[in-house]
């Protein structure tokens, strides 16, 4: 019973914002590469421009992501980077995911 409660608690504590597949993928990339531009994110995540832009905006609004604009030669470039809040949220999300897996395994082994 304790495992079931632990599982339910971990599921409710999962960061809903990051649990969305596209946003989780964006956070994963930025966690591993530090900074990436829009085209790189599009290359790694086969999705439409509109969809990607919407999810980036959602993450930015939540304070998980910051945008840096600069010029490379004459071309403007927009770089995306996780904030420390975003990095912490991502790491906590992974820990919760591991907790869910462990609780699921415990329930399975007792059944």
């Amino acid at each position, binding site marked *: 019973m304790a495992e079931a409660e632990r599982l339910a608690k971990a599921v409710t504590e999962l960061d809903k914002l990051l649990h969305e597949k*596209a946003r989780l993928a964006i956070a994963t990339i930025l966690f591993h590469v530090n900074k990436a531009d829009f085209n790189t994110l599009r290359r790694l995540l086969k999705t439409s421009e509109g969809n990607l832009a919407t999810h980036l905006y959602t993450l930015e609004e939540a304070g998980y992501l910051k945008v840096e604009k600069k010029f490379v030669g004459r071309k403007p470039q927009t770089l995306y980077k996780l904030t420390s809040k975003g990095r912490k949220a991502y790491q906590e999300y992974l820990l919760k*995911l591991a907790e869910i897996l462990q609780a699921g395994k415990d329930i399975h082994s007792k059944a």
Partner: protein
Amino acid sequence: MEAREIEERLELLEKLGGIIRRERRARGLIHAAWGAAILVGLLIFQAVELLSLPWYYGVASLVALLIAAMVATVFLARKIRGQLGYVGGGWLGRKIGAAWAATALGGGLAYMIVFWSPSVSQAVFSQLPPQAVSGLILTGWLIIDGIGCMVQGVISESKAFRWIGLAMLVSAILVAHVGFIFAYAAFALTFGLGYLLVGLRDYSEFKRSSEAGVEIG
């Protein structure tokens, strides 16, 4: 929430992590540049020591090669950024950087302070000829950088870097028994050659990999 949903997230994390790990191999070019500079620079230094030429020949060529590697890093990083859209960094880069700072900077600084303390340096200089002293100092760096390499191998899950680190530690023991004057060749043939070969291998693996991305809908 269904179990399938969690499985999908795990698959996504694994797949993206795998793609980024493969793409990070593009940095092999930078490792190869530093490996080549250290290999050639220290082999020249070894020749200078064995032929008893003025020491500044060795220092000048090593410094020139390291500066060339530094300049090459800027260009190669630009090339990689052009290919991938990013160079590196991120969680793994920060961990590796912190590990190197702890071993090479922290350990190296402490080692140098201990080495140059009056009692140690007096004992060393009274027992060893001047040529062997610089070899002894370099042997200490073989150990420190060997540990750094092994730590990098553990963090990045790279067997190659763990082997380079181990080779450096073994070569430090050999140098201590054979003669400190051979420390330059030992450093060149472990760290330098190791980074050069692993770097070239990583880059060629990166060039061969073709996975473009993941579908997120």
